[in-house]
């Protein structure tokens, strides 16, 4: 029999207690009341008298009770000769989740995390299967179970460490929720047949407060998965960081003015900071108590610069103390209108279209009559029939990846629709009846997605007095975005080449419908313009990992330049996704250069460690033993095996049962002896 906590066996020494008490008690118990001690002198006990133990059975029971208690506390277990480490018999599966987010750049967190990961790799048994997934905003498998199993036995840790060498902390944010669920999926992908052993996710992270935990709530964790937390902590807690907000409309007059949001963590020991541009001496003092976040109007960008670095000094950590700023530039968008009516006639479509795109600080939308060139056009609106030349021009333009909105204002638009879609004929007619209302709407489509909230999704009050009914030919690739209550399509998306044609079955002029007069009209037109792809607002502030839309969807390829001078050439219309470094980026198109800034997400600056309770509350199956030793040795491994054996056998329960039995017998015997002694004394 072995013991898990043998030092508790020292409790056996307590057996001397009852023995001594049984010796002492003998004289102490016999107290004889006597009328007067006037004539008695104390007699010292005779040294030669041999002490005798009384009630040997009682003493033995008490000693046995103490013995059982001591052995029970020592957690005994029977060693099994055929027992082998759990890794050998069951094959442990372990996914090491290694945090590579920007906050891991602090102090020596990364080297600590590496060390822990390498320890786990070295401790993996022969039958163990290990996979490593690094994560920041996105999880990235470094190697899978299959790769690990394929490596030669002795070289697995070395090869895995070599893979780890290529990894370093990025500048991106942390999506812990996604990382954990991805790690759990690794087990499912590994196959259920081999999952008899423990399945552990070792999460090595700084567990920063700003990590996203989306997707954890209600996640269906595979059976038997345990998450072991290995938190790495910096030497000095606390951090302050900043981000520059997108210039707001109300300060459009001065686009060089930036707003900075500064966060100071709860565990920070500092509260006074300086905020200034580049090495500018005119830094402003910022007072921010720990645990608070405030927004400050930064000093204006020096006039000779279009972009700059806003520095926050005075914080504990420096990785997030620089925010890059690029002054936003005004974007001009052109909507081509293929109608001839006056822009001031309220009975016509153009009147309302002209007013659907108000000028903002970032974008000026011009609704122009269609010309022969559509190069600068973002969206084409077709309110009437087109001639053959226009159809040809528009078809080519659409096929290059553009978008147009065809409004069926009358049944004569049928040939135009057919020509644009490339079909010989389309059956189009005025729909009978008084009016129609909107029925089904696909709120998952980008055009209607902004209306998906129940507060905005009510289109039922818009009456369509007249509309055109057309049947979608089976050979036409079309997606009906909205239908009338009688099932006829209202808004249909038809793919033409790379581009899209939207077909609206009724006009928004008062004669056709109440659409232009409803509150839905302006947002609908905006979403259509945004959806057209080429007219995305020209943002100048991005975060690491964001996709930057191409400023133009057609024309010559664009040259994107990163802060490290690396250049990437992408076709017009292809978004730029390589935003992995903070700094000022530039994109060159047709001789003009546009700048935009990419920054570390502010959430990375919230470095206060998350509590394990937060994860447990979200249903993450954390390992019950709170403190998993960071450094595992052969001894700890052996101990783990012993603990498992002991946990399985639970011999201490039987010892406790035995102890209770002994206690019961002791009480009964003690009571009987006490009564017997009293009876004898009375009889005497």
């Amino acid at each position, binding site marked *: 029999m072995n013991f898990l906590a043998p030092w508790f066996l020292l409790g056996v020494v307590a057996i001397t207690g009852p023995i001594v008490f049984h010796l002492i008690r003998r*004289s*102490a118990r*016999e*107290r*004889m*009341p*006597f*009328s*007067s*001690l*006037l*004539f*008695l*002198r*104390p*007699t*010292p*006990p*005779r040294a030669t008298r041999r002490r005798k133990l009384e009630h040997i059975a009682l003493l033995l029971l008490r000693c046995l009770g103490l013995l059982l208690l001591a052995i029970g506390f020592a957690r005994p277990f029977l060693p099994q000769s055929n027992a082998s480490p759990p890794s050998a018999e069951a094959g442990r599966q372990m996914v090491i989740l290694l945090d590579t987010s920007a906050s891991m750049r602090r102090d020596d967190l990364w080297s600590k995390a590496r060390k822990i990961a390498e320890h786990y790799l070295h401790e993996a048994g022969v039958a163990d299967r290990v996979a490593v997934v690094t994560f920041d905003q996105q999880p990235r498998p470094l190697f899978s179970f299959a790769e690990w199993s394929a490596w030669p036995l002795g070289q697995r840790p070395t090869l895995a460490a070599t893979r780890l060498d290529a990894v370093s902390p990025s500048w991106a944010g942390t999506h812990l929720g996604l990382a954990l669920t991805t790690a759990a999926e690794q087990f499912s992908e590994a196959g259920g047949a081999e999952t008899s052993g423990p399945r552990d996710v070792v999460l090595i992270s700084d567990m920063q407060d700003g990590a996203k935990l989306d997707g954890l709530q209600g996640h269906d964790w595979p059976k038997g998965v345990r998450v072991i937390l290995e938190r790495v902590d910096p030497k000095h807690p606390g951090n302050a960081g900043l981000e520059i907000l997108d210039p707001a409309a109300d300060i459009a007059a001065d686009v060089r003015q930036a707003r900075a949001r500064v966060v100071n963590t709860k565990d920070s020991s500092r509260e006074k900071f300086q905020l200034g541009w580049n090495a500018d001496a005119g830094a402003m003092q910022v007072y921010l108590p720990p645990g608070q976040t405030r927004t400050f109007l930064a000093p204006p960008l020096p006039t000779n610069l279009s972009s700059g670095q806003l520095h926050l000094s005075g914080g504990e950590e420096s990785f997030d103390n620089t925010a890059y700023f690029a002054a936003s530039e005004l974007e001009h968008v052109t909507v081509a209108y293929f109608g001839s009516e006056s822009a001031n006639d309220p009975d016509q479509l153009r009147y309302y279209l002209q007013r659907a795109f108000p000028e903002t600080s970032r974008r000026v939308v011009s609704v122009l009559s269609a010309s022969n060139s559509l190069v600068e056009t973002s969206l084409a609106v077709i309110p009437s029939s087109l001639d053959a030349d226009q159809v040809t021009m528009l078809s080519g333009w659409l096929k290059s990846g553009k978008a147009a909105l065809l409004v069926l204002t009358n049944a004569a638009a049928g040939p135009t629709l057919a020509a644009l879609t490339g079909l010989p004929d389309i059956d189009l007619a005025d729909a009978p009846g008084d009016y129609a209302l909107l029925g089904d709407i696909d709120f998952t489509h980008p055009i209607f997605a902004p209306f998906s909230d129940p507060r905005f999704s009510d289109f039922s009050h818009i009456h369509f007095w007249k509309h055109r009914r057309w049947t979608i030919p089976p050979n036409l690739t079309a997606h009906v975005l909205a239908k009338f209550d009688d099932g006829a399509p209202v808004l249909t998306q038809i793919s033409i080449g790379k581009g899209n044609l939207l077909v609206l079955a009724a006009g928004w002029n008062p004669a056709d419908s109440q659409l232009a007069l409803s509150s839905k009209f302006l947002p609908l037109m905006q979403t259509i313009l945004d959806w057209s792809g080429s007219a995305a607002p020209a943002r100048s502030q991005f975060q690491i990992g964001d996709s930057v839309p191409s400023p133009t969807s057609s024309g010559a390829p664009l040259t994107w330049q990163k802060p490290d001078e690396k250049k990437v050439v992408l076709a017009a219309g292809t978004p730029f996704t390589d935003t992995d470094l903070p700094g000022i980026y530039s994109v060159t198109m047709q001789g003009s250069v546009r700048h935009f800034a990419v920054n570390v997400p502010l959430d990375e600056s919230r470095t206060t460690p998350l509590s394990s309770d937060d994860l447990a509350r979200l249903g993450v199956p954390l390992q019950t033993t709170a403190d998993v030793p960071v450094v595992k040795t052969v001894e700890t491994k052996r101990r783990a095996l012993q603990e498992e054996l002991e946990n399985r056998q639970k011999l201490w329960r039987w010892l406790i049962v035995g102890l209770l039995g002994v206690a019961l017998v002791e009480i009964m015997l003690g009571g009987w002896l006490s009564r017997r002694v009293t009876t004898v004394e009375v009889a005497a």
Partner: protein
Amino acid sequence: MPGAASTSVSSAPVRAFADPKALMAIRNLELRARVVVEGFWNGMHRSPYHGFSSEFTEYRQYSPGDDTRYLDWRLYARSDRHFLKRFEDETNLRCHLLVDQSPSMSYASLAYSKADYVRTLAATLAWFLHGQGDAVGLVSFDERVRDYLPPRHRHGHLRQLMLALERGSEGRVTNLGEPLRRVAELARKRGLMVLLSDLLTPLDELESGLARLTAAGHEVVLLQTLDPNELAFDFSRPMLFQDLESHQDVYVDPGAARGEYQRRLADHCRRAEAICQKLGAAYHRIITDQPLEKALAHFLRGRRRRNKLVRRHVRAMSV
């Protein structure tokens, strides 16, 4: 002197008395006393109600106006002078029973304690004296006087006395000096003082207390009551002995300590007896395994002897 003084006790061989153990099994104290006294009377040859109650004390010269009934005509015939015979006052005996109720009296090696025995003895004496028409009072004490019933002979008084005897004591120690001093103050008229105690206390104050009583003209009888085991100290094993009064523990090996204990106790008793002899008080040692009738007989025999001595002394003085 009337009453007890005139009572004669048979000197016949000791008959079978009531077993104290059986007697103490009777719960009612008054009944116990009655059993003892009636058993005791059954053994007497004469009735206690036929005694001569007037005692001659002295002669006085006749002066005009004196009652001529008391002229001693025989003396006149011999000496031709007129003398009047004077007798003691025709009062009944006034007896105080002084009962020790201290915790040391609660020791019992028998089925009953010394206190039980002393209460029964006191009740017996009270019943006996009351039956003779004497006034009986009670003083129960420990370190001070707990109960005081002045000597009376009237209906219901005996009942009150029994109730007072049955009441326990909350005292902690025995102190003879203070109670005896207090009794001397309370008992103005001369009478009989019967002190029932184990006297297991330093005797310095006993002497002064008894002296105060005898000086006041009281007749004192001391009945030292001891448990048989207090005399024999019959314990076999060494153990802790706890003083019933001080609750002090002393480890004693009886085998080794018995001899010295008995010697010291005997010295103590002898000293108490010597004090009584010195002060003219009667001393009797009563062991609680003795029949109560025997104790009563001791008491009465002692009193008769003393009264004879007194009468002889008075006559000698008058001649």
